[in-house]
Protein backbone atom coordinates (compact mmCIF):
# COMPACT_ATOMS: atom_id res chain seq x y z
CA UNK A 1 0.00 0.00 0.00
CA UNK A 2 1.34 3.40 -0.89
CA UNK A 3 0.94 6.16 1.58
CA UNK A 4 0.10 9.69 0.62
CA UNK A 5 1.59 11.82 3.35
CA UNK A 6 0.67 15.05 1.60
CA UNK A 7 -2.99 14.13 2.01
CA UNK A 8 -2.51 14.43 5.74
CA UNK A 9 -1.12 17.92 5.27
CA UNK A 10 -4.06 19.01 3.17
CA UNK A 11 -6.44 20.14 5.95
CA UNK A 12 -3.65 22.16 7.51
CA UNK A 13 -2.74 23.75 4.21
CA UNK A 14 -6.35 24.57 3.47
CA UNK A 15 -6.74 26.12 6.88
CA UNK A 16 -3.60 28.15 6.45
CA UNK A 17 -4.71 29.24 3.02
CA UNK A 18 -8.24 30.15 3.94
CA UNK A 19 -7.58 31.95 7.20
CA UNK A 20 -4.14 33.36 6.77
CA UNK A 21 -2.74 33.49 3.26
CA UNK A 22 -5.93 34.47 1.48
CA UNK A 23 -6.70 37.47 3.71
CA UNK A 24 -3.05 38.46 3.55
CA UNK A 25 -3.11 38.26 -0.23
CA UNK A 26 -6.23 40.41 -0.38
CA UNK A 27 -4.61 42.97 1.89
CA UNK A 28 -1.49 42.93 -0.29
CA UNK A 29 -3.55 43.50 -3.43
CA UNK A 30 -5.40 46.38 -1.78
CA UNK A 31 -2.13 47.90 -0.60
CA UNK A 32 -0.78 48.25 -4.12
CA UNK A 33 -4.11 49.27 -5.66
CA UNK A 34 -5.12 52.88 -6.23
CA UNK A 35 -7.10 54.93 -3.82
CA UNK A 36 -10.69 55.18 -5.01
CA UNK A 37 -14.14 54.58 -3.71
CA UNK A 38 -12.88 52.77 -1.77
CA UNK A 39 -10.24 51.19 -4.03
CA UNK A 40 -9.66 51.30 -7.73
CA UNK A 41 -7.82 48.89 -9.95
CA UNK A 42 -4.31 49.97 -10.41
CA UNK A 43 -0.81 49.34 -9.25
CA UNK A 44 1.60 51.44 -7.31
CA UNK A 45 3.68 51.63 -4.18
CA UNK A 46 2.48 55.06 -3.14
CA UNK A 47 0.60 53.70 -0.11
CA UNK A 48 3.89 52.48 1.30
CA UNK A 49 5.37 55.90 0.72
CA UNK A 50 2.55 57.40 2.76
CA UNK A 51 3.59 55.14 5.66
CA UNK A 52 6.57 57.39 6.34
CA UNK A 53 4.26 60.05 7.53
CA UNK A 54 5.52 62.03 10.52
CA UNK A 55 2.09 61.36 12.01
CA UNK A 56 2.19 57.60 11.59
CA UNK A 57 5.57 57.03 13.17
CA UNK A 58 4.64 58.31 16.66
CA UNK A 59 1.52 56.15 16.56
CA UNK A 60 3.62 53.08 15.79
CA UNK A 61 6.03 54.03 18.53
CA UNK A 62 3.21 54.52 21.04
CA UNK A 63 1.67 51.17 20.07
CA UNK A 64 5.05 49.56 20.63
CA UNK A 65 5.52 50.89 24.14
CA UNK A 66 1.93 50.46 25.27
CA UNK A 67 2.04 46.86 24.04
CA UNK A 68 5.37 46.39 25.81
CA UNK A 69 3.98 47.79 29.06
CA UNK A 70 0.88 45.60 28.78
CA UNK A 71 3.05 42.56 28.08
CA UNK A 72 5.20 43.30 31.13
CA UNK A 73 2.05 43.79 33.19
CA UNK A 74 0.67 40.45 32.02
CA UNK A 75 3.99 38.82 32.88
CA UNK A 76 4.21 40.46 36.29
CA UNK A 77 0.75 39.17 37.18
CA UNK A 78 0.63 36.03 35.05
CA UNK A 79 3.90 34.48 36.20
CA UNK A 80 3.22 34.47 39.95
CA UNK A 81 -0.38 33.56 39.22
CA UNK A 82 0.66 30.54 37.18
CA UNK A 83 3.05 29.56 39.96
CA UNK A 84 0.27 29.88 42.50
CA UNK A 85 -2.07 27.73 40.42
CA UNK A 86 0.46 25.05 39.63
CA UNK A 87 1.26 24.65 43.33
CA UNK A 88 -2.40 23.99 44.19
CA UNK A 89 -3.45 20.38 44.75
CA UNK A 90 -4.34 18.71 41.46
CA UNK A 91 -8.07 18.98 41.88
CA UNK A 92 -8.38 22.67 42.73
CA UNK A 93 -5.79 23.48 40.07
CA UNK A 94 -8.30 22.97 37.22
CA UNK A 95 -10.75 25.23 38.97
CA UNK A 96 -8.23 28.05 39.39
CA UNK A 97 -7.13 27.67 35.83
CA UNK A 98 -10.66 28.01 34.52
CA UNK A 99 -11.23 31.05 36.72
CA UNK A 100 -8.33 32.73 34.97
CA UNK A 101 -9.73 31.83 31.56
CA UNK A 102 -13.17 33.31 32.30
CA UNK A 103 -12.46 36.69 30.63
CA UNK A 104 -11.98 34.74 27.41
CA UNK A 105 -15.32 33.01 27.74
CA UNK A 106 -17.36 35.96 28.91
CA UNK A 107 -18.08 38.87 26.62
CA UNK A 108 -14.92 40.91 26.90
CA UNK A 109 -16.70 44.08 25.89
CA UNK A 110 -19.07 43.84 28.79
CA UNK A 111 -16.10 43.27 31.06
CA UNK A 112 -14.35 46.32 29.63
CA UNK A 113 -17.42 48.41 30.36
CA UNK A 114 -17.21 47.06 33.88
CA UNK A 115 -13.67 48.42 34.01
CA UNK A 116 -14.88 51.84 32.94
CA UNK A 117 -17.26 51.89 35.91
CA UNK A 118 -14.36 50.98 38.18
CA UNK A 119 -11.83 53.45 36.81
CA UNK A 120 -14.00 56.38 35.85
CA UNK A 121 -14.04 59.62 37.82
CA UNK A 122 -16.37 59.13 40.80
CA UNK A 123 -16.31 55.42 39.99
CA UNK A 124 -15.78 52.42 42.22
CA UNK A 125 -12.04 52.88 42.65
CA UNK A 126 -12.28 56.53 43.60
CA UNK A 127 -15.20 55.80 45.92
CA UNK A 128 -13.19 53.15 47.68
CA UNK A 129 -10.08 55.29 47.88
CA UNK A 130 -12.20 58.17 49.11
CA UNK A 131 -13.57 56.07 51.92
CA UNK A 132 -10.06 55.06 52.91
CA UNK A 133 -9.00 58.68 52.73
CA UNK A 134 -6.49 57.91 49.98
CA UNK A 135 -8.03 59.94 47.19
CA UNK A 136 -6.08 62.93 45.90
CA UNK A 137 -8.31 65.93 45.49
CA UNK A 138 -8.21 65.84 41.70
CA UNK A 139 -9.06 62.13 41.60
CA UNK A 140 -6.83 59.58 39.94
CA UNK A 141 -7.70 60.60 36.40
CA UNK A 142 -7.11 56.99 35.46
CA UNK A 143 -9.86 56.36 32.96
CA UNK A 144 -9.30 57.75 29.48
CA UNK A 145 -5.54 57.74 29.87
CA UNK A 146 -2.73 55.44 28.72
CA UNK A 147 -2.56 53.73 32.15
CA UNK A 148 -6.22 52.76 31.74
CA UNK A 149 -5.42 51.30 28.32
CA UNK A 150 -2.64 49.26 29.84
CA UNK A 151 -4.84 48.05 32.69
CA UNK A 152 -7.53 47.03 30.22
CA UNK A 153 -5.06 45.28 27.95
CA UNK A 154 -3.47 43.42 30.87
CA UNK A 155 -6.87 42.28 32.03
CA UNK A 156 -8.02 41.21 28.61
CA UNK A 157 -4.88 39.42 27.49
CA UNK A 158 -3.77 37.90 30.81
CA UNK A 159 -5.09 34.43 29.87
CA UNK A 160 -2.77 34.43 26.85
CA UNK A 161 0.15 34.82 29.23
CA UNK A 162 -1.07 32.37 31.84
CA UNK A 163 -1.81 29.63 29.35
CA UNK A 164 1.73 28.99 28.06
CA UNK A 165 3.46 29.89 31.33
CA UNK A 166 1.22 27.55 33.26
CA UNK A 167 1.84 24.81 30.72
CA UNK A 168 5.60 25.20 31.06
CA UNK A 169 5.36 25.21 34.85
CA UNK A 170 3.25 22.09 34.81
CA UNK A 171 6.09 20.37 33.01
CA UNK A 172 8.63 21.75 35.49
CA UNK A 173 10.02 19.30 38.03
CA UNK A 174 9.51 21.08 41.32
CA UNK A 175 12.06 18.89 43.07
CA UNK A 176 14.61 21.08 41.29
CA UNK A 177 13.56 23.92 43.59
CA UNK A 178 14.17 21.65 46.56
CA UNK A 179 17.52 20.71 45.13
CA UNK A 180 18.42 24.38 44.84
CA UNK A 181 17.23 25.07 48.38
CA UNK A 182 19.24 22.08 49.57
CA UNK A 183 22.35 23.59 48.04
CA UNK A 184 21.77 26.86 49.85
CA UNK A 185 19.69 28.91 47.42
CA UNK A 186 17.08 31.22 48.89
CA UNK A 187 13.60 31.46 47.41
CA UNK A 188 14.47 34.33 45.11
CA UNK A 189 17.65 32.75 43.87
CA UNK A 190 15.91 29.43 43.20
CA UNK A 191 13.20 31.15 41.20
CA UNK A 192 15.62 33.31 39.23
CA UNK A 193 18.24 30.67 38.54
CA UNK A 194 16.17 27.49 38.27
CA UNK A 195 12.45 28.06 37.72
CA UNK A 196 12.71 31.10 35.45
CA UNK A 197 15.24 29.70 32.93
CA UNK A 198 13.26 26.51 32.62
CA UNK A 199 9.92 28.21 32.10
CA UNK A 200 11.42 30.77 29.74
CA UNK A 201 10.06 29.09 26.60
CA UNK A 202 6.57 29.47 28.04
CA UNK A 203 7.33 33.05 28.99
CA UNK A 204 8.56 33.88 25.49
CA UNK A 205 5.47 32.33 23.93
CA UNK A 206 3.22 34.18 26.34
CA UNK A 207 4.92 37.52 25.74
CA UNK A 208 4.67 36.97 22.03
CA UNK A 209 0.98 36.16 22.14
CA UNK A 210 0.24 39.15 24.33
CA UNK A 211 2.49 41.57 22.50
CA UNK A 212 1.15 40.77 19.06
CA UNK A 213 -2.43 41.16 20.16
CA UNK A 214 -1.99 44.27 22.25
CA UNK A 215 0.07 45.95 19.55
CA UNK A 216 -2.88 45.77 17.17
CA UNK A 217 -5.67 46.35 19.66
CA UNK A 218 -8.15 49.09 18.87
CA UNK A 219 -11.15 48.41 21.07
CA UNK A 220 -9.38 48.99 24.38
CA UNK A 221 -7.71 52.29 23.36
CA UNK A 222 -11.12 53.49 22.17
CA UNK A 223 -13.04 52.46 25.27
CA UNK A 224 -10.57 52.96 28.08
CA UNK A 225 -8.25 55.46 26.40
CA UNK A 226 -11.05 57.78 25.45
CA UNK A 227 -9.99 57.54 21.79
CA UNK A 228 -7.40 60.23 22.59
CA UNK A 229 -4.48 57.87 22.34
CA UNK A 230 -4.31 56.39 18.88
CA UNK A 231 -2.71 53.01 18.48
CA UNK A 232 -1.86 51.50 15.15
CA UNK A 233 -5.01 49.34 15.25
CA UNK A 234 -7.11 52.49 15.48
CA UNK A 235 -5.20 53.99 12.61
CA UNK A 236 -5.78 50.98 10.38
CA UNK A 237 -9.43 50.87 11.34
CA UNK A 238 -9.78 54.59 10.61
CA UNK A 239 -8.19 54.33 7.20
CA UNK A 240 -10.70 51.66 6.26
CA UNK A 241 -13.79 53.07 7.94
CA UNK A 242 -13.73 56.77 8.48
CA UNK A 243 -13.77 59.34 5.77
CA UNK A 244 -11.88 60.03 3.65
CA UNK A 245 -11.20 56.35 3.22
CA UNK A 246 -7.73 55.30 2.20
CA UNK A 247 -7.82 51.53 1.91
CA UNK A 248 -4.41 51.21 0.28
CA UNK A 249 -2.82 53.07 3.20
CA UNK A 250 -4.77 50.98 5.72
CA UNK A 251 -3.67 47.82 3.96
CA UNK A 252 -0.06 48.99 3.74
CA UNK A 253 -0.12 49.77 7.46
CA UNK A 254 -1.54 46.35 8.21
CA UNK A 255 1.19 44.73 6.11
CA UNK A 256 3.86 46.77 7.87
CA UNK A 257 2.52 45.61 11.24
CA UNK A 258 2.44 41.99 10.08
CA UNK A 259 6.01 42.34 8.86
CA UNK A 260 7.18 43.96 12.08
CA UNK A 261 5.52 41.28 14.16
CA UNK A 262 6.96 38.59 11.92
CA UNK A 263 10.39 39.94 12.76
CA UNK A 264 9.52 39.83 16.47
CA UNK A 265 8.31 36.24 16.10
CA UNK A 266 11.42 35.28 14.20
CA UNK A 267 13.70 36.75 16.84
CA UNK A 268 11.86 35.09 19.68
CA UNK A 269 11.90 31.77 17.86
CA UNK A 270 15.65 32.14 17.60
CA UNK A 271 15.82 32.91 21.28
CA UNK A 272 13.62 29.96 22.07
CA UNK A 273 15.58 27.48 20.02
CA UNK A 274 18.75 28.75 21.65
CA UNK A 275 17.13 28.20 25.03
CA UNK A 276 16.26 24.67 24.15
CA UNK A 277 19.81 24.16 22.98
Amino acid at each position, binding site marked *: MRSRPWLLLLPGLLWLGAFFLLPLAIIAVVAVADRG*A*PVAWGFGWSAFGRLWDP*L*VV*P*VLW*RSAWIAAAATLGCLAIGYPLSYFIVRRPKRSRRLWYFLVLIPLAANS*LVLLYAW*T*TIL*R*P*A*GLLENLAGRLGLLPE*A*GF*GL*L*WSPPAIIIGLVYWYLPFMVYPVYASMERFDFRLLEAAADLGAGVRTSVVRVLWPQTLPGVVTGCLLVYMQTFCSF*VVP*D*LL*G*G*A*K*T*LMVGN*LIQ*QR*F*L*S*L*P*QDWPLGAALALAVVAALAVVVWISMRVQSRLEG
Partner: protein
Amino acid sequence: MKNPHLPRFTAAVLLLAAGLLLAACAGDRRETISLFIWDDFIDPDVLTQFEDETGIRVIVSNYSSNEDLLAKLQVSPGQYDVIVPSDYMVQIMRRMELLAPLDYGLLTTVEHIDERFQGLPYDPEMDHSVPYLWGTTGIAYLENVVTDPPRTWREFFDPDRSAPYRGRISLLDDSREVLGAALMALGHSPNSRDEAEIRAAGELLRAFLPLVAKFDSDAFEDSLAAESTVLIQGWSGEITLAKDENEEIRYLLPQDGTVVFVDNLAIPASSRKIEQAHLLIDFLGRPEIAAQIVEFTYFGSANASANERVDPEVLEAPGLQYPPPGVARYLEDVEEAADLYERVWLELKSR
Protein backbone atom coordinates in the same frame (compact mmCIF):
# COMPACT_ATOMS: atom_id res chain seq x y z
CA MET B 1 -28.03 59.94 13.53
CA LYS B 2 -25.26 58.17 15.35
CA ASN B 3 -27.10 56.70 18.23
CA PRO B 4 -24.87 53.76 18.99
CA HIS B 5 -25.29 52.35 22.45
CA LEU B 6 -23.19 49.52 21.10
CA PRO B 7 -19.83 50.09 19.49
CA ARG B 8 -18.72 48.77 16.17
CA PHE B 9 -17.53 45.44 17.38
CA THR B 10 -20.91 44.48 18.75
CA ALA B 11 -22.51 45.85 15.64
CA ALA B 12 -20.37 43.48 13.63
CA VAL B 13 -21.42 40.57 15.83
CA LEU B 14 -25.04 41.55 15.46
CA LEU B 15 -24.50 41.76 11.75
CA LEU B 16 -23.15 38.26 11.73
CA ALA B 17 -26.10 37.05 13.78
CA ALA B 18 -28.43 38.80 11.40
CA GLY B 19 -26.67 37.11 8.52
CA LEU B 20 -27.13 33.72 10.13
CA LEU B 21 -30.74 34.52 10.75
CA LEU B 22 -31.09 35.46 7.12
CA ALA B 23 -29.63 32.13 6.11
CA ALA B 24 -31.95 30.35 8.50
CA CYS B 25 -34.90 32.10 6.97
CA ALA B 26 -33.92 31.16 3.46
CA GLY B 27 -36.25 28.21 3.66
CA ASP B 28 -39.06 30.47 4.80
CA ARG B 29 -41.36 31.29 1.88
CA ARG B 30 -42.32 34.65 3.30
CA GLU B 31 -40.71 37.54 1.57
CA THR B 32 -38.03 39.45 3.46
CA ILE B 33 -36.21 42.70 3.09
CA SER B 34 -33.21 43.90 5.00
CA LEU B 35 -33.17 47.21 6.87
CA PHE B 36 -29.73 48.52 7.87
CA ILE B 37 -30.27 51.24 10.42
CA TRP B 38 -28.83 53.04 13.45
CA ASP B 39 -29.21 51.28 16.73
CA ASP B 40 -32.49 52.14 18.56
CA PHE B 41 -33.66 54.12 15.58
CA ILE B 42 -36.97 52.43 14.97
CA ASP B 43 -39.76 51.02 17.10
CA PRO B 44 -39.80 47.24 16.47
CA ASP B 45 -43.57 47.33 16.79
CA VAL B 46 -43.73 49.39 13.61
CA LEU B 47 -42.01 46.63 11.70
CA THR B 48 -44.47 44.07 13.04
CA GLN B 49 -47.31 46.21 11.77
CA PHE B 50 -45.62 46.40 8.39
CA GLU B 51 -45.27 42.66 8.22
CA ASP B 52 -48.89 42.11 9.24
CA GLU B 53 -50.04 44.40 6.51
CA THR B 54 -47.78 43.38 3.63
CA GLY B 55 -46.54 39.95 4.59
CA ILE B 56 -43.00 41.18 4.09
CA ARG B 57 -40.70 40.45 6.93
CA VAL B 58 -38.08 43.09 7.83
CA ILE B 59 -34.70 41.87 8.96
CA VAL B 60 -32.97 44.57 10.97
CA SER B 61 -29.26 45.05 11.44
CA ASN B 62 -27.44 48.00 12.98
CA TYR B 63 -24.41 50.17 12.43
CA SER B 64 -22.97 52.90 14.60
CA SER B 65 -21.42 55.36 12.19
CA ASN B 66 -22.00 56.57 8.67
CA GLU B 67 -18.54 55.37 7.80
CA ASP B 68 -19.41 51.94 9.07
CA LEU B 69 -22.50 51.96 6.88
CA LEU B 70 -20.47 53.00 3.85
CA ALA B 71 -17.83 50.34 4.37
CA LYS B 72 -20.38 47.56 4.84
CA LEU B 73 -22.26 48.67 1.77
CA GLN B 74 -19.04 48.64 -0.24
CA VAL B 75 -17.96 45.25 1.01
CA SER B 76 -21.30 43.43 0.71
CA PRO B 77 -23.32 44.89 -2.15
CA GLY B 78 -26.81 43.45 -2.47
CA GLN B 79 -27.00 42.72 1.23
CA TYR B 80 -29.19 45.66 2.21
CA ASP B 81 -32.47 46.98 0.84
CA VAL B 82 -33.14 50.06 2.96
CA ILE B 83 -30.45 52.16 4.64
CA VAL B 84 -30.51 55.33 6.74
CA PRO B 85 -27.51 57.54 5.86
CA SER B 86 -27.10 61.01 7.32
CA ASP B 87 -27.16 64.12 5.17
CA TYR B 88 -23.51 64.40 4.15
CA MET B 89 -23.31 60.66 3.65
CA VAL B 90 -26.22 60.83 1.23
CA GLN B 91 -24.15 63.33 -0.70
CA ILE B 92 -21.13 61.06 -0.67
CA MET B 93 -23.11 58.01 -1.65
CA ARG B 94 -24.77 59.91 -4.46
CA ARG B 95 -21.38 60.96 -5.68
CA MET B 96 -20.25 57.33 -5.53
CA GLU B 97 -23.47 56.25 -7.27
CA LEU B 98 -24.34 53.85 -4.50
CA LEU B 99 -28.00 54.86 -4.25
CA ALA B 100 -30.96 53.82 -6.37
CA PRO B 101 -33.17 56.62 -7.70
CA LEU B 102 -36.50 56.77 -5.88
CA ASP B 103 -39.71 56.10 -7.75
CA TYR B 104 -42.25 58.64 -6.58
CA GLY B 105 -45.00 56.68 -8.21
CA LEU B 106 -44.56 54.27 -5.29
CA LEU B 107 -44.14 56.86 -2.54
CA THR B 108 -47.48 58.42 -1.66
CA THR B 109 -46.60 59.75 1.79
CA VAL B 110 -43.86 62.21 0.82
CA GLU B 111 -46.38 65.00 0.79
CA HIS B 112 -46.09 65.03 4.61
CA ILE B 113 -42.39 65.99 4.60
CA ASP B 114 -41.76 69.17 6.54
CA GLU B 115 -40.82 72.10 4.32
CA ARG B 116 -37.73 72.72 6.38
CA PHE B 117 -36.35 69.40 5.17
CA GLN B 118 -37.20 69.83 1.55
CA GLY B 119 -34.61 71.04 -0.89
CA LEU B 120 -31.68 70.42 1.44
CA PRO B 121 -28.33 70.84 -0.32
CA TYR B 122 -27.22 67.20 -0.15
CA ASP B 123 -30.19 65.99 -2.21
CA PRO B 124 -32.28 69.02 -3.18
CA GLU B 125 -34.79 67.14 -5.36
CA MET B 126 -34.97 64.10 -3.03
CA ASP B 127 -33.86 62.02 -5.98
CA HIS B 128 -32.25 59.37 -3.80
CA SER B 129 -33.37 59.96 -0.24
CA VAL B 130 -36.38 60.80 1.90
CA PRO B 131 -35.77 62.60 5.21
CA TYR B 132 -36.65 60.35 8.15
CA LEU B 133 -35.58 61.69 11.55
CA TRP B 134 -33.58 64.73 12.50
CA GLY B 135 -31.61 65.82 15.52
CA THR B 136 -29.07 68.37 16.63
CA THR B 137 -25.51 68.42 17.91
CA GLY B 138 -25.44 70.54 21.02
CA ILE B 139 -23.95 71.08 24.44
CA ALA B 140 -25.08 68.95 27.36
CA TYR B 141 -24.08 69.42 30.99
CA LEU B 142 -24.99 68.64 34.54
CA GLU B 143 -26.81 71.58 36.01
CA ASN B 144 -25.65 70.94 39.57
CA VAL B 145 -21.99 71.06 38.51
CA VAL B 146 -21.85 73.47 35.60
CA THR B 147 -23.52 76.53 37.03
CA ASP B 148 -22.69 78.88 34.18
CA PRO B 149 -22.87 76.73 31.05
CA PRO B 150 -21.34 77.88 27.77
CA ARG B 151 -24.02 79.18 25.42
CA THR B 152 -21.82 79.08 22.33
CA TRP B 153 -19.05 76.93 20.93
CA ARG B 154 -16.75 79.89 21.43
CA GLU B 155 -17.44 79.78 25.16
CA PHE B 156 -17.30 76.00 25.20
CA PHE B 157 -13.82 75.89 23.65
CA ASP B 158 -12.48 78.71 25.81
CA PRO B 159 -9.84 76.92 27.92
CA ASP B 160 -10.08 79.39 30.79
CA ARG B 161 -13.83 79.23 30.98
CA SER B 162 -13.96 75.43 30.84
CA ALA B 163 -10.89 74.85 33.02
CA PRO B 164 -12.93 73.89 36.14
CA TYR B 165 -14.23 70.85 34.26
CA ARG B 166 -10.83 69.59 33.20
CA GLY B 167 -10.88 65.82 32.65
CA ARG B 168 -14.69 65.75 32.77
CA ILE B 169 -15.35 67.03 29.24
CA SER B 170 -16.08 64.79 26.28
CA LEU B 171 -16.24 65.48 22.56
CA LEU B 172 -17.76 63.35 19.83
CA ASP B 173 -15.35 60.92 18.21
CA ASP B 174 -16.10 62.39 14.80
CA SER B 175 -13.73 64.64 12.91
CA ARG B 176 -16.39 66.62 11.07
CA GLU B 177 -18.49 67.26 14.19
CA VAL B 178 -15.56 68.33 16.36
CA LEU B 179 -13.73 70.39 13.76
CA GLY B 180 -17.10 71.76 12.64
CA ALA B 181 -17.87 72.99 16.16
CA ALA B 182 -14.40 74.56 16.40
CA LEU B 183 -14.88 76.22 13.02
CA MET B 184 -18.18 77.69 14.18
CA ALA B 185 -16.53 78.89 17.39
CA LEU B 186 -14.15 80.83 15.15
CA GLY B 187 -17.02 82.19 13.16
CA HIS B 188 -16.51 80.01 10.10
CA SER B 189 -18.73 77.57 8.29
CA PRO B 190 -18.57 73.97 9.56
CA ASN B 191 -18.14 73.05 5.91
CA SER B 192 -15.17 75.33 5.34
CA ARG B 193 -12.75 74.21 2.66
CA ASP B 194 -10.24 76.90 3.52
CA GLU B 195 -6.99 75.41 4.73
CA ALA B 196 -6.14 78.32 7.01
CA GLU B 197 -9.55 78.17 8.67
CA ILE B 198 -9.40 74.41 9.17
CA ARG B 199 -5.90 74.63 10.60
CA ALA B 200 -6.98 77.42 12.92
CA ALA B 201 -9.79 75.17 14.16
CA GLY B 202 -7.19 72.48 14.77
CA GLU B 203 -5.11 74.92 16.80
CA LEU B 204 -8.12 75.89 18.89
CA LEU B 205 -8.74 72.23 19.66
CA ARG B 206 -5.09 71.56 20.44
CA ALA B 207 -5.21 74.23 23.13
CA PHE B 208 -8.44 72.76 24.46
CA LEU B 209 -7.37 69.12 24.39
CA PRO B 210 -5.74 68.98 27.86
CA LEU B 211 -9.19 69.52 29.34
CA VAL B 212 -10.76 66.71 27.31
CA ALA B 213 -11.36 63.35 28.97
CA LYS B 214 -12.30 61.46 25.86
CA PHE B 215 -13.64 61.38 22.34
CA ASP B 216 -16.79 59.30 22.40
CA SER B 217 -19.72 58.91 20.05
CA ASP B 218 -20.93 55.64 21.48
CA ALA B 219 -21.62 56.14 25.16
CA PHE B 220 -21.23 59.86 25.87
CA GLU B 221 -24.70 60.04 27.40
CA ASP B 222 -23.99 57.15 29.78
CA SER B 223 -20.86 58.85 31.12
CA LEU B 224 -22.79 62.07 31.60
CA ALA B 225 -25.60 60.28 33.41
CA ALA B 226 -23.02 58.56 35.61
CA GLU B 227 -21.42 61.98 36.26
CA SER B 228 -18.04 60.80 35.02
CA THR B 229 -18.28 63.69 32.60
CA VAL B 230 -20.05 66.95 33.28
CA LEU B 231 -19.83 69.00 30.11
CA ILE B 232 -20.05 67.40 26.69
CA GLN B 233 -20.72 67.75 23.03
CA GLY B 234 -23.53 65.36 22.17
CA TRP B 235 -26.48 64.43 20.02
CA SER B 236 -29.99 65.45 21.00
CA GLY B 237 -31.74 62.06 20.99
CA GLU B 238 -29.36 60.26 23.33
CA ILE B 239 -29.23 63.23 25.70
CA THR B 240 -33.00 63.43 25.88
CA LEU B 241 -33.22 59.74 26.70
CA ALA B 242 -30.44 60.01 29.31
CA LYS B 243 -32.45 62.60 31.22
CA ASP B 244 -34.56 59.74 32.52
CA GLU B 245 -31.46 58.49 34.33
CA ASN B 246 -30.14 61.77 35.67
CA GLU B 247 -32.39 64.77 36.20
CA GLU B 248 -29.47 67.18 36.31
CA ILE B 249 -28.79 66.76 32.60
CA ARG B 250 -29.49 69.85 30.51
CA TYR B 251 -29.19 70.34 26.75
CA LEU B 252 -28.73 73.57 24.85
CA LEU B 253 -28.23 74.62 21.27
CA PRO B 254 -25.07 76.70 20.81
CA GLN B 255 -26.00 80.08 19.44
CA ASP B 256 -22.99 80.43 17.13
CA GLY B 257 -24.06 77.42 15.10
CA THR B 258 -25.93 74.19 15.79
CA VAL B 259 -25.49 71.31 13.44
CA VAL B 260 -28.76 69.81 12.40
CA PHE B 261 -28.48 66.34 11.01
CA VAL B 262 -31.10 64.59 9.01
CA ASP B 263 -31.07 60.85 8.62
CA ASN B 264 -32.68 59.71 5.43
CA LEU B 265 -34.28 56.60 4.10
CA ALA B 266 -32.57 55.43 0.94
CA ILE B 267 -32.24 52.35 -1.21
CA PRO B 268 -28.82 51.02 -2.22
CA ALA B 269 -28.36 50.73 -5.95
CA SER B 270 -27.31 47.15 -5.34
CA SER B 271 -30.63 46.14 -3.76
CA ARG B 272 -32.53 43.39 -5.55
CA LYS B 273 -35.82 44.28 -3.85
CA ILE B 274 -36.29 47.85 -4.91
CA GLU B 275 -40.07 47.62 -5.05
CA GLN B 276 -40.48 46.15 -1.56
CA ALA B 277 -38.00 48.73 -0.24
CA HIS B 278 -40.26 51.48 -1.57
CA LEU B 279 -43.19 49.87 0.26
CA LEU B 280 -41.33 50.10 3.56
CA ILE B 281 -40.23 53.70 3.00
CA ASP B 282 -43.78 54.65 2.13
CA PHE B 283 -45.10 52.88 5.22
CA LEU B 284 -42.65 54.68 7.52
CA GLY B 285 -43.88 57.98 6.09
CA ARG B 286 -47.44 57.49 7.34
CA PRO B 287 -48.11 60.18 9.95
CA GLU B 288 -49.32 57.80 12.68
CA ILE B 289 -46.35 55.50 12.15
CA ALA B 290 -43.88 58.40 12.10
CA ALA B 291 -45.41 59.71 15.34
CA GLN B 292 -44.94 56.35 17.00
CA ILE B 293 -41.27 56.41 15.98
CA VAL B 294 -40.73 59.88 17.48
CA GLU B 295 -42.12 58.76 20.81
CA PHE B 296 -39.80 55.79 20.76
CA THR B 297 -36.58 57.47 19.62
CA TYR B 298 -36.92 61.04 20.94
CA PHE B 299 -35.62 62.28 17.62
CA GLY B 300 -37.66 64.73 15.62
CA SER B 301 -39.58 63.49 12.66
CA ALA B 302 -39.19 65.03 9.22
CA ASN B 303 -42.85 64.30 8.82
CA ALA B 304 -44.89 67.46 9.46
CA SER B 305 -48.19 65.63 9.91
CA ALA B 306 -46.62 63.26 12.42
CA ASN B 307 -45.85 65.96 14.94
CA GLU B 308 -49.52 66.78 15.31
CA ARG B 309 -50.00 63.28 16.73
CA VAL B 310 -47.04 63.24 19.08
CA ASP B 311 -47.56 63.77 22.82
CA PRO B 312 -46.98 67.55 23.21
CA GLU B 313 -44.84 66.96 26.27
CA VAL B 314 -42.40 64.96 24.16
CA LEU B 315 -42.29 67.68 21.57
CA GLU B 316 -41.29 70.24 24.17
CA ALA B 317 -38.10 68.43 25.12
CA PRO B 318 -35.03 70.60 24.37
CA GLY B 319 -33.66 67.81 22.23
CA LEU B 320 -36.57 68.16 19.85
CA GLN B 321 -36.26 71.89 19.30
CA TYR B 322 -35.22 73.06 15.88
CA PRO B 323 -32.58 75.82 16.09
CA PRO B 324 -33.80 79.36 15.55
CA PRO B 325 -33.29 80.89 12.12
CA GLY B 326 -29.64 81.62 11.37
CA VAL B 327 -28.35 79.09 13.89
CA ALA B 328 -29.03 75.81 12.09
CA ARG B 329 -26.18 74.39 10.01
CA TYR B 330 -25.95 71.29 7.88
CA LEU B 331 -22.80 69.28 7.37
CA GLU B 332 -21.99 68.84 3.72
CA ASP B 333 -19.59 66.77 1.75
CA VAL B 334 -16.40 68.83 1.61
CA GLU B 335 -14.98 66.63 -1.16
CA GLU B 336 -11.21 67.05 -1.57
CA ALA B 337 -10.96 69.05 1.69
CA ALA B 338 -11.94 65.84 3.54
CA ASP B 339 -8.29 64.79 3.47
CA LEU B 340 -7.31 67.96 5.27
CA TYR B 341 -9.98 67.48 7.94
CA GLU B 342 -8.72 63.96 8.52
CA ARG B 343 -5.14 65.15 8.61
CA VAL B 344 -5.80 67.82 11.24
CA TRP B 345 -7.86 65.32 13.22
CA LEU B 346 -5.01 62.80 13.15
CA GLU B 347 -2.49 65.43 14.22
CA LEU B 348 -4.73 66.15 17.17
CA LYS B 349 -4.95 62.51 18.21
CA SER B 350 -1.41 61.35 17.55
CA ARG B 351 0.17 64.23 19.41
